[in-house]
């Protein structure tokens, strides 16, 4: 099956991933004729010691960089004001955001202000109100990178913005930056990306331009998540300083996959799994990414039965051409779901039960479901309450969804 008519696709980000990625920053700034970047670090990035490698990447370049360390967890308009004063007063001409989450969000909003007139925040609010490219905006993600940074949305106080021009121009993923992170954070980011990619990849009408990105994200997460978690605490040996080891490559690949997942969720409406897991996360201690991983097979089974999602295709991305070719056609979807459940099972063991296998294991009780779905349908009219309840109930008991 194929999408017979219109499709529109754009991925303006330049990905740069691997050894000496940070050192490409000055050269890439030169492409845009920028000479004086302002580099923003989140508090966490400062604690993780990320300032040194980033600023040293500018050594032996002709560029004097401005460094702002300690962007607060929840920046406000006054933070924007302070930073835009700094940017303008010191003659900066590009932004580099290092870290994840809040600093990315802040940088996007800041870039609207410094690229235009001070009143722009009001006029640029909403969808597609920005009409021209902004100043160069580069990002350097940490291992906890969620998709936030690669999408075109940002919000601050009561303002929210959506535009292709908010998507960063350049993304440098460097082994020195993606090192320190807890297992929970890595799993959260990976599972969030796996969910959005899996839904995009199995769409009833294939979108051939999103397909490669989704395929890559799924393949990357499936091949690298478990080994990276298994080796999370291993120390670097002597040899590893000469040749990049697999765990290091795996971590970088996972960050890339997370970023791609975020980009995909910007192109596609959120699937049922992401919406449910956002809502569920308010009822328990677990993050929405981890919950999305748990709900994923159930959500896909539902989407296949209800809307014809091509779950059999997923087996190719998850297990590769060999397994796919050997599996009889009518069992491919089922096998794919089996692999997803397998990953969940392995994570459960590797984290000593921190990652649950069922919603019951997550400590969410059945009678919270209907209240939650009630609240969801107030904000979101298109939601299929019965379907949601069925997904949740199956996920609670760990029973595959076989009919609707």
């Amino acid at each position: 099956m194929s999408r017979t008519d219109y499709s529109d696709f754009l991925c303006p980000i330049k990905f740069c991933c691997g050894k000496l990625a940070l050192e490409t920053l000055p050269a890439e700034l030169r492409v845009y004729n920028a000479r004086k970047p302002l580099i923003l670090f989140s508090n966490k990035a400062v604690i993780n010691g990320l300032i040194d490698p980033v600023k040293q990447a500018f050594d032996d370049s002709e560029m004097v960089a401005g460094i702002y360390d300690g962007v607060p967890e929840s920046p406000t308009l006054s933070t924007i004001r302070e930073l835009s004063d700094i940017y303008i007063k010191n003659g900066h001409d590009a932004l580099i955001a290092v870290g994840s989450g809040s600093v990315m969000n802040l940088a996007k909003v800041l870039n609207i202000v410094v690229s235009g007139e001070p009143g722009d925040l009001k006029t640029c609010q909403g969808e597609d109100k920005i009409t021209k490219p902004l100043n160069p905006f580069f990002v350097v993600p940490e291992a906890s990178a969620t998709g936030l940074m690669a999408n075109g949305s940002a919000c601050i106080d009561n303002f929210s913005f959506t535009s292709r021009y908010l998507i960063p121009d350049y993304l440098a993923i460097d082994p020195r930056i993606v090192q320190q992170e807890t297992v929970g954070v890595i799993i959260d980011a990976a599972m969030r990306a796996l969910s959005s990619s899996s839904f995009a990849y199995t769409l009833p009408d294939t979108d051939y331009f999103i397909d490669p990105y989704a395929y890559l994200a799924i393949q990357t997460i499936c091949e690298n998540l478990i080994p990276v978690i298994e080796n999370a605490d291993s120390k670097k040996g002597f040899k590893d300083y000469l040749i990049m080891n697999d765990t290091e490559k795996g971590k970088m690949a996972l960050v890339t996959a997370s970023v791609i997942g975020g980009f995909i969720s910007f192109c596609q409406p959120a699937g049922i799994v992401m919406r449910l897991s956002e809502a569920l996360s308010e009822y328990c201690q677990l993050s929405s990414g981890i919950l999305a991983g748990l709900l994923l097979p159930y959500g896909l089974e539902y989407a296949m039965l209800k809307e014809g999602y091509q779950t059999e295709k997923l087996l190719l991305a998850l297990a590769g051409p060999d397994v796919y070719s050997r599996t009889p056609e009518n069992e491919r979807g089922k096998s794919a779901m089996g692999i997803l459940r397998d990953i969940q099972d392995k994570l459960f063991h590797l984290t000593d039960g921190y990652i649950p296998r069922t919603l019951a294991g997550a400590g969410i009780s059945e009678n919270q479901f209907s209240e939650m779905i009630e609240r969801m349908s107030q904000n979101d009219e298109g939601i299929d309450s019965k379907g949601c309840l069925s997904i949740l109930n199956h996920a609670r008991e760990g029973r595959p969804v076989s009919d609707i």
Partner: protein
Amino acid sequence: MYLPEYCEFLSPVQIASGHHVLEKIPGFLKALNAKRPLILADKGVTAAGLIGIVEDAIKDNVQIGAIDDDVPPDSDLKVVSRLSDVYRKNNCDAIIAVGGGSVLDTAKGLNILVSEDADNLMEFAGANKLKRPLKPFIAIPTTAGTGSELTMAAVIADHDNFIKILFGSRFLLPDIAIIDSRMTLTLPAFFTAATAMDAMTHAVESYICLQKNPLSDAHALSAISLISKNLLNVIRKPDDQEGRLLLAKAATLAGMAFSNSTVGIVHTLGHSVGGVCGVPHGTCMSIFLPYGLEYNYHLVNPFIAELLFPLAGPEVYADTPENKRAEKTIEYIRQLNQDLHDATGGRHARFLSEILNRDGEQMVKKSHFDAIARISIGDGTKFYNPEEIDYDDSMLVLEASWDGRPLNRNLVKKNA
């Protein structure tokens, strides 16, 4: 999966595809703040009625500044300079290029002149000379193969000085590429076959050459599978609009792959044979593709083996033992060439001695080999090929592809 220590990927062109996308151009222009586009094409495009289709699709909603279909197949500085006068005289503020490689390259050069308000294109020759975005630029490819709408390079000739000038910058890329099935619907069968094999070669080479990376790989695999599933059907049933669209999408995916990971010996030799004997690019690609795989076999056979899946599908893949898959891939491509040869009534050439011009004369002679091999060692694509390519190496492949003999892989020079 293959994870390199370092890689880059960039494909920032917006892709709008479908059966009725041309009608959306006025909206795209508005979003780009443009009002009066100059439409560029060549005579072939007009003769095929494509300019008419484009004009009809947009004229009610946008003021066309001018239409110029006088771009020759080997466009040069003078043409670009003449077009810049047309652009300025008609107060245009955007470019729409309809056509293949030459029209697109001309449009890129034109865009430099009119955006930088310059008269001398030579000031911008070379790599990374442009520092800011140019005027709005929409590309409408009409061949489903070249992928020039996705590459950051342009080649423009200087016929007075007998040189070709290279321009390289990300700002040369169009803002939007329009993939509309109507643009390729009337392409003759042998031409469809050749351009599709060009796209196939982009995908295959990007998958085996040195700059491959996970994102270019994913694009290449999709492209190969789409071409393999649709090419013969479209040749046999030329008005299959859906098949045409899928082939065009595949060519775009292949373009995204190779503009990031580049191509190797198939293009090295193809460029030279094109330059020396005037053979169309796609024809060279189909002929050299199996040889390119054989030539690099000792270095990349696991990658070649992986290509069997998108080429031949799960059944053949499962039935072929692992250590035979790379050879099977090569065999499959040879068979595809044979099938295309049969389906086009023999017009799709399988080897060099079979290439004929309009008058039925042989285009490549053995006496050309020396010149071809000499030019090959100076072609930029040789850098990206897994194995080194010197004069003797080129001769080896040329000799074998003269009459379609498989390459004797033992004769390929290897690391000493």
